[in-house]
């Protein structure tokens, strides 16, 4: 009996291993002839600045990425790939040379970037990939890229659904086609095809899902990028809460048979609807698309999809018609579609490729508060950042005002005799400088001109902190000295 058992087991093992063998054989990379002259491999040098010593550049690292041609000398990739890049180089199939590329247009909200190559150095024109708007739910899709080793590589996955997902590089939610269980690890900006048609590029992926930026977004971006002045697309200027509770609906005096609509809980000072909507409004429909209590609407192709998608298709200046329930009745509000850049936010969400704003005097290091600055607190910074700093980001990031365009902080103090006694101060929010309210980082320079007969600059902070008094006599000399001691190449970047 025992011998028989062993025999069966060994047969099973043999069968299994032979199966594995054949699987390996079918995995041999199949190349798509068509893609050969369209795909590129990217080499990106990533730099950027240190947050703690913003006068200093970070160590440059090299990473590889992918892209595809969308014009004879135009390459499309993700904005995420190019964020903080110091130099971008491309290499095409069966070529050895790295050709430098320049950024023509970049849109972090759409997470797309258009690179331009110099025809003189790039050689033969590329064959542009044509992106076709096609949503084939349930069908197998192929993903192509030109690997670092110069191979044309392919993976497969099934298109499962379309949904709005949060953008990994910005504060927006965007439309993505979700492919599930890709046959191998994939990366950003690889080209996704359905049968022979390119339908999108990979935006980002995790273990199970592959999020594809669809052709419709790519084409909108490419069309807009033709324009001399790239304006981007609509961003919501409000946030909503689900409106499920019948008691709340009754309280808002909504008719009992009215089951749709989402509650506007916050209206920002930036973005679409910021001037037209009010907190407490219930959005019933946008451009005749009925909005459900979760803020989604029924799309003919994509089924239930977040209303952010409606806004993100429009260009700034277009109009969106909101039907809202306000003060017991229905009102139509025509909202001008608007968008904004991260640096317009009270606490900018990102500062890719930019040197952070800072100002050093008397050894006091002043900086503009940004989301990047919070990274100094390491992982899970949201629970560790001093709460008074954090609330400007969490509660007011989208609410800059005339009164407050930037949050200026005393980051820390470079110890020197001039700042004796102040050396442990830091992470304080500047409220006034020589008696002048500080609305923006630029105000520092104006405020320093004030009270020119006083022997001191006097800085006050929010909440309980001592005032800082900096003597003006010989300050230029002191500053130069401190700059030399601490290796600060420039004492300000505003």
């Amino acid at each position, binding site marked *: 009996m025992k011998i028989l058992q062993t025999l069966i087991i060994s047969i099973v093992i043999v069968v299994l291993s032979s199966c594995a063998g054949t699987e390996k054989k079918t995995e041999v990379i199949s190349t798509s002839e068509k893609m050969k002259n369209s795909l590129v491999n990217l080499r990106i040098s990533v730099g950027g600045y240190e947050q703690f010593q913003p006068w200093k550049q970070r160590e440059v690292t090299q990473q590889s990425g992918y892209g595809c041609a969308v014009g004879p000398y135009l390459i499309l990739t993700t904005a995420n790939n190019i964020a903080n890049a110091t130099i971008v180089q491309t290499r095409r199939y069966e070529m050895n040379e790295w050709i430098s590329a320049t950024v023509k247009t970049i849109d972090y909200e759409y997470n797309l970037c258009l690179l331009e190559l110099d025809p003189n150095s790039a050689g033969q024109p590329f064959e542009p990939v044509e992106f076709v708007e096609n949503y084939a739910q349930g069908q197998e899709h192929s993903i192509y890229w030109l690997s670092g080793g110069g191979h044309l590589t392919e993976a497969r996955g099934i298109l499962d659904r379309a949904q709005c997902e949060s953008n990994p590089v910005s504060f927006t939610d965007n439309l993505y086609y979700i492919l599930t269980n890709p046959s191998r690890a994939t990366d950003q900006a690889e080209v996704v095809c359905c049968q022979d048609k390119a339908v999108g590029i990979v935006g980002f992926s995790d273990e199970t899902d592959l999020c594809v930026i669809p052709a419709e977004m790519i084409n909108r971006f490419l069309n807009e990028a033709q324009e001399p002045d790239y304006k981007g697309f609509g961003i919501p200027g409000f946030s909503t809460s689900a409106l499920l509770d019948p008691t709340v609906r009754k*309280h808002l005096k909504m008719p009992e048979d009215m089951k749709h609509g989402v509650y506007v809980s916050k209206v920002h000072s930036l973005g679409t609807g910021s001037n037209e909507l009010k907190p407490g409004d219930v959005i019933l429909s946008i451009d005749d698309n009925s909005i459900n209590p979760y803020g989604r609407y029924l799309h003919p192709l994509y089924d239930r999809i977040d209303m952010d998608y409606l806004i993100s298709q429009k260009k700034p200046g277009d109009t969106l018609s909101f039907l809202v329930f306000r003060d017991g009745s229905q009102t139509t509000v025509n909202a001008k579609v608007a968008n904004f850049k991260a640096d317009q936010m009270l606490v900018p969400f990102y500062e890719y490729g930019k040197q952070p704003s800072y100002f050093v005097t008397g050894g006091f290091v002043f900086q503009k508060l940004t989301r990047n600055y919070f990274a100094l607190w*390491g992982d899970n910074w949201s629970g560790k950042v001093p709460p008074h700093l954090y609330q400007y980001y969490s509660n007011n990031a989208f609410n800059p005002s005339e009164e407050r365009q930037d949050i200026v902080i005393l980051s820390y103090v470079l110890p020197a005799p001039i700042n004796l*006694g102040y050396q442990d101060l830091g992470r304080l929010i500047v409220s006034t400088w020589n008696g002048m309210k500080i609305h923006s980082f630029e105000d520092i320079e104006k405020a320093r001109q004030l009270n020119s007969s006083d022997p001191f600059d006097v800085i006050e902070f929010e909440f309980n902190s001592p005032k800082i008094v900096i003597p003006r006599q010989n300050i230029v000399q002191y500053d130069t000295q401190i700059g030399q001691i601490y290796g600060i190449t420039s004492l300000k970047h505003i």
Partner: protein
Amino acid sequence: MKKKSTMWIIRSLFILSFLVLLPPCLIAEEQEDQQAVQDVQDTKTQDSSETLAVAPDPVEENPKDLTFEKSVVMLEVVQQDWDYKTPWKQSAMARGVGTGFIIDGKRILTNAHNISNIKYLEVKKQNVAKRFPAKAVFVGHDCDLAIIDVEDPSFYEDMVPLELGGIPQVNSTVTTCGFPVGGRQVSITKGVVSRIEVGNYSHTQADMHLLVQTDAAINPGNSGGPVLQNGKVVGVAFQGLQTADNIGYMIPTTVIQHFLKDIEDGKYDGFPSPAIAVYEGLHNPAYKYYLKLPDFVEGVVVLLVQKNSTAEKILLPGDVITQIDGFNIDNDGMIKIYGLSLNWSEALETKQIGESVEITYCRDGKPSKATLKAALNLPILPWSLQFDKKPQYYVYAGLTFTPLSRNYLQTFGRNWLTEIPFTLRYLFHNSMELNEDPKRQEYVVLSEILPDEVNTYCNPFLSQVVEKINGVMIYSLKDVREQLSKTPEGGCHQIRFLNNDMPLILDATMAQDRQAAILEQYQVPSNVYIEE
């Protein structure tokens, strides 16, 4: 550099949490621990005999230090805290062992943390089988001291009270007596006084008093035991530093004397709080010039004065306090007292509640004097843990409201400080600055929702702080009860929470109808407990 910047925060926020109380050790762990202790003792004996052979110990024993047998007792306790999310419930009970000692007036002195939230207390003498049930008479949680009493008068017959001494010299030898990790015999350890400074008392997590650091081994179970020098008590062993070796702390006799004097009138009031935040670092000549201070004047700069405190209307931000109770304050905020250099708060520590203290301060360069009344000056959101106080709550439609306290915040688990919802974290750190309304007594939080059809949609509001009900500002739990007991206009209560633009709407009639069923289903004995 990145690492360094993270360090600041950790240093400023968490330095206090490294201090660990020496809890009465858990009985369940006792057996294993005893084995470990035994091993250590065995090797110790060998070591010491070897050392003796090489060089005899020159330190002279004071025989008076060894009279502990008739003075030091073991406490066996059962403690049980409340559940601060559903305050009508109590959490699991814990059994433990601590130490106490007899002082004059037939009293036993021990640590407050040994007998906080006490359910049962028993005292045991060394080498006597009889057990003596006892009860807490006075508990000072802020200074971690307590007086307990044994009802059986025969208990004190053969006991010898210990006398209190003064502040020991740094580098002088002290002996600790107690029952570390349980055991039946008093354990003696010896060490030197390492330093004396003002520091955090970890029982309440927030109170600061004078403490004496020693390298004599102080372990769980030692808590409440005397630290002796020349036969006199120079401290009560009470806490250790978890992250360091051989750093133990005792409560010095200045704090013990304050506690004993406080209870002379039959009740414990506590230590006064200055109710101001000051800057202890007035070193910059430019800053001094700006404050119109002569260069030779030293002091601390007032940054914030607590609302509704005894310092309000006397001090203003920008004032420089130069003297307190006749002691000159230096630019580091230190005064010379007891022959030591200690934080200026030590001068206020000598005062009982209701007494007054004279301060000298400079405003706009002009010196003035003022008298501050010593008071508790409790803040709106105390950083101290509370004990022996049944938590207050109010249940309406299954929504459980409770005052915001550290005890409640700690229900979020070990990493509560970083894991609590942001608004709670902001209030915990900055309630003094954020609350501009002198009418506020406390913040009220929606601590738990007992699920029922009436509160089906209320979950998003859990752990949020109530701002208004039906348009009326909420300043206390009583306000919540008052507003929700009224019949609202339009039949619905509207509750607004801090930093939330969505209101919670409750159908008042339905809430009323469901109230009894909810209380029954979740076994809530009463829908309210509010101290009147």
